[in-house]
């Protein structure tokens, strides 16, 4: 892990991040995004060092407590309703392209 990250994002890094985020960026987009993101990163990197180690992180604005409900039957969507927006349906199921490659 780098001690102090460089506040720039290279074209290769953007391509890698897009891969992680499952977006097929075009070459033009990659050219455009790398410098744009570097400018943004440069600006937001200013928060480094603002809070010391003794400051606890906040993940939610207000304190969260776990919420339970009774395990009882209640109305819900029908299968037809749940599938109503699906790109493809087969045998009352979401039909998706193959997930595993041939070798798997």
């Amino acid at each position, binding site marked *: *892990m*780098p001690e*102090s*990250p460089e506040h720039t*994002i290279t074209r290769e*890094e*953007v391509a890698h*991040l*897009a891969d*992680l*985020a*499952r*977006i*097929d*960026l*075009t070459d033009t*987009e990659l050219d455009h*995004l790398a410098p*744009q*993101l570097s*400018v*943004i*990163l440069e*600006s*937001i*990197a*200013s*928060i*480094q060092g*603002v*809070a010391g180690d003794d*400051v*606890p*992180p*906040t*993940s*939610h*604005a*207000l304190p*969260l407590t776990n*919420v339970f*409900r009774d395990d009882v039957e209640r109305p819900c*969507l029908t299968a037809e*309703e*749940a599938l*109503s*927006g*699906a*790109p*493809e349906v087969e045998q009352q199921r*979401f039909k*998706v*392209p*193959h*997930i*595993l*490659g041939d070798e798997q």
Partner: protein
Amino acid sequence: MTGEGAAGPARSVRATAADLSAALDEGRTTSVEVTRAHLDRIAEVDGDVHAFLHVDAEGALIAAAESDERRAAGRTWSALDGIPIAVKDVMATRGLPTTCGSHILEGWVPPYDATVVARLRGAGLPILGKTNMDEFAMGSSTEHSAFGPTHNPWDLTRIPGGSGGGSAAAVAAYEAPLAIGTDTGGSIRQPGAVTGTVGVKPTYGGVSRYGLVALANSLDQAGPVTRTVLDAALLHEVIGGHDPLDSTSIEQQLPALVDAARRGADGDLTGVRIGVVRELGGEGYQTGVLARFEESVELMTKAGAEVVEVSCPHFVHALATYYLILPAEASSNLARFDAMRYGLRVTPGGDPSAEDVMRATREAGFGDEVKRRIILGTYALSSGYYDAYYGQAQKVRTLVTRDFEAAFEQADVLVSPTAPTTAFKIGEKVDDPLAMYLNDLATIPANLSGVPGISIPSGLADEDGLPAGVQILAPAMADDRVYRVGAAMEALLVQEWGGRLLDEAPELTSRGGSPLASSGTEWES
């Protein structure tokens, strides 16, 4: 609509929801008349304004007729029964398209209602349609909508703010008396400021997020978009309160908001401590915006308020904090758009795998700003950078909240300009993301800490004659304070002006263009 023949449909679009409610009660008009008048207004001006992505004329008129039947039988459901409303297109509406301003959801019709929408229907409000927004609520100008920008009714060449520019413009252009917005970093309040309307971001957890398509779930909050503070309070009471379907919903009763707004309308602020936030003003704020803000503070002093200056030193880091936390949460939330269960599916050639389809669909379906933020969020969350960026942002978020806590020991409410500038020209900042982000400078701290805020019109900036707004913030669950002080400010300013600020807006006239010709507008009937 006080006095002279105001109950006629043509005039009814200028009436407040509170006045419409009285007119309905007194039998001076009907919900069908009022709803039809707004549909006519939409047909007349929305070709120019483009506040709506979908108009449901048939559904609205059916709901209006049912409301009239209830009223005739003496069984109305709420104070707003029969008053039509527009809903931001980020809220799931059963049977009505919900796109979030994105191609990836184009044509999707949700099989369920968001809790806010269910409460609107349960209170008898006819839904006129869905309003335009920056794609997935990412933006401050509504230019990032995949279906074309919304135009500010004050000057059609300018932005109406964002992300909820459609809701604010609809209300400002008298296309709807009421609208629903959502505010993640200012998306209700900043459009309110630049269109001369009222917008409220409730306490986080005060209004259910169930069925609100998540941008950043620790920041998102739905709220009212209206022309008066009282109307906002009336709407807030309809949509607010605990919802078991949202695990972050606060299990407490809402404070009495309508009472607070009515009480504030006497313009008396005796004994109220008002804190001017030193860090939310000065450099980066337009001269005319600051001048109107300072006059508003003077008015509060004259009305008996005790005005003190407070310092929130970490607010200067709020913007950077927000642009780490928001993309991080958004990159995770938007992973659900995977082309498998609903929405767009783009299938590349050959024998594509599910992952190939996902990549192609997300490339085709998401716009530039959404891609920017997903990549930025993925970066901020990746190992090696997590501590330096996202982890640090979460800590600074704690410091911002501590600043609020200290400030609220000195003052009952905090005030600042809502947005640093008035409405800018469409196209001016669309390719400069950083300049765009600065619009939310003053509104973001409230989202980071979950506190409620209101924006009300503060006047017109001298240099461009465009509306500016003043923001009033209160501690969490003290939403009644923003209504009391907001209503008082509004009363004092309206008295100064001799009418509402929106009365100064230029008249929109139909240029003969059909709303059908505008990009993305669909008519349901």
